[in-house]
């Protein structure tokens, strides 16, 4: 378990270190359009990449040496102030929401939420703005644990129409119409709110 715990802590830092090295090789290829010896367009990104690589290696070393499974993510000023007031443990729990017995962890919901957001971006040009917005609103409500499906449908419908109205009549942004029957639906909606 200790090895797994350390691997879990080290992994993000290793990914960042790998990304920094890869981006460095890309920065090497920026063509230098300046006189020899002058700082070129790759200098600033390379300094930032060095900082990133250094921080990632520091993180790896810290995770391996300390092997801490629980990090204190609170600012030192907050920790010191709460400690001096005798509320260090209360502050840690209250800031982390640990005293809240209403909490229930569901990582699958978050992954499904990501899929819904990416799906929305992928289908918006086919289904049009109104239909895809209705579907996204509904799916996020249900995935986030709203337990009244009929009310969710109604709110998603009204919400999608309200957003459509705001875009078309108030901020004048052109929205994806969709294709086939969805385009017909979008045109009908536009006609209903007086947009030609």
């Amino acid at each position, binding site marked *: 378990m200790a090895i797994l715990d350390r691997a879990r802590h080290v992994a993000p830092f290793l990914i960042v270190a790998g990304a920094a090295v890869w981006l460095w090789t890309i920065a090497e290829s*920026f063509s230098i359009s300046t006189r020899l010896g002058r700082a070129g367009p790759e200098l600033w990104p390379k300094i930032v990449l060095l900082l990133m690589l250094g921080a990632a290696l520091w993180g790896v070393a810290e995770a391996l040496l300390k092997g801490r499974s629980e990090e204190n993510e609170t600012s030192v000023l907050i920790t010191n102030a709460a400690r*001096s007031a005798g*509320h260090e443990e209360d*502050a840690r729990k209250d800031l982390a929401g640990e005293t809240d017995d209403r909490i229930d962890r569901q990582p699958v919901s978050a992954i499904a*939420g990501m899929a819904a957001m990416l799906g929305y971006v992928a289908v918006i040009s086919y289904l049009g703005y109104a239909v895809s917005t209705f579907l996204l609103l509904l799916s996020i*409500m249900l995935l986030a644990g709203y337990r009244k499906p009929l009310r969710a449908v109604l709110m998603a419908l009204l919400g999608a129409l309200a*957003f459509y109205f705001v875009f078309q009549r108030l901020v004048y942004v052109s929205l*994806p119409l969709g294709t086939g029957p969805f385009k017909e639906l979008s045109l009908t909606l536009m006609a209903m709110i007086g947009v030609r």
Partner: protein
Amino acid sequence: MDTLANLLHGFTIVLQPLNLLFLVIGLVLGLVVAVLPGLTLVMGVVLALPFTYGMGVIPAVILLTAMYVSGTYGGAFTSILFRIPGEPIDVPLLWDGYPMARAGEPALALGWTLFAALAGGLFAAVAMVFLSGPVAVIALTLSTPEYFAVIMLGLSSVVSLGGSSLPKALISLSLGLLFSAVGTDPTYGEPRFDFGIPILQDGIEYLLIMVGAYGLGEVLTRMEVRSTPVNLPAIGSIRTKLPSLKAVLGVKASLIRGSLVGFLIGVIPGAGATIASFVSYGLESQYGKRRRELGTGIPEGIVAPQSAATASVGGAMVPLLTMGIPGSGATAIIMAAFMLQGVQPGPHVFFKSGDLVFAVFAAVFASVIGMCILGYFAIKLLVKVLAFPEAVTSAFVVMFCFMGAMASRSTSGDLWVIASFGILGYMFERFRFPIAPMVLGAILGPLAETSFMTTMISFSNDWTVFFTRPISGAIMALVAVALIYPLVSEWMGRRRQGRQSMETSS
């Protein structure tokens, strides 16, 4: 006299009907987001940002400033009445505000909060007006090496004060700086990190980073860490009872200390209202007249954190308006509102656009007073917001985020970018990387790079100028102190703990 005349002129701008309307809308939204489950103050200000595109710079900044001010106050209601902190700022209020309410004095506890917010906010607003001028005069004398050092100080204090994992904060900052480097390089016009993808060739808009990471990322996190709806307990008639003048005079030392500490902490980039609130409570426990009674429900335990939290807003406006350095998530968004309108806050704008600057100052004063009036009369309605289902809020937050992306450039590519930053924001939360350094890095990255490159070109690639010139050298030394401070503090904490456990075992 000039300052007072300008401030008066600022009030005439704020009190124009349209600006006043945006001020009231901002106050209501700030109070609501501080209470509403599923929304944080920074998230609320971010969601309002895209709506400022079509406004002028003055109403846009008035709206966001009003949200920022009232957001430091709204969460106090639920902390005191139900022991549910709306924001991390409100956690210290749980230790005395809630016990006072439990002891049968909820109206008085709310009254002390209102009084502290009003007094702390007004004190900081006055200090902000009179300190900004001299700071801007100093900022005007800075040349590029010094300006670069000031930006580094801002970024390093955000890194060191944001959380105790320095490597994570540094990674977050460097990612933000890298995102700002995507697209055409500002000095030579060379394309960088665009991978031949058209949407990256114009660079990544910091607005998409902010809205994606703070908005969508937070929604995804809340979908994972779910809380069930709140059943509000019956607590009788909710009202606010103001303390008597005699009682107020009894806590004047706590009030002055809290307001001063809050203002000074607000000035430091990276240390916002939450740190101000905690530090002020910590100081009260060390130096307060009734320090031994703290935690039992005494007014000093409410006045100290609340006055500091509200006072920090006035403090945070000083580096933003005089040097263009935002010190927190909320001020970074206000700075973004300036930049979206083509205004780069800093000493030049401070002296050349007096109307704008003094309108912001007047907006802070008006917001502090307005939020207290709203808080006094609308508390019943605001508390009911707590029962609103988080799932519904989340769904609409997602749509507001996408709406912001569409309203920006109306390209589908921006939707992919914002969704990607939403996922990145969630991963940050999941692996406990702070988001604020990335956002500040993305905003300040172009300024940092430009001042760095200009210095390098002007001083023939001599990077030592940052350390050998007196002012930039001194500021760079402060950068080093800012970065070393959390390490030293952590080490001392561990030593103290070790000593305590040794004493306990012996």
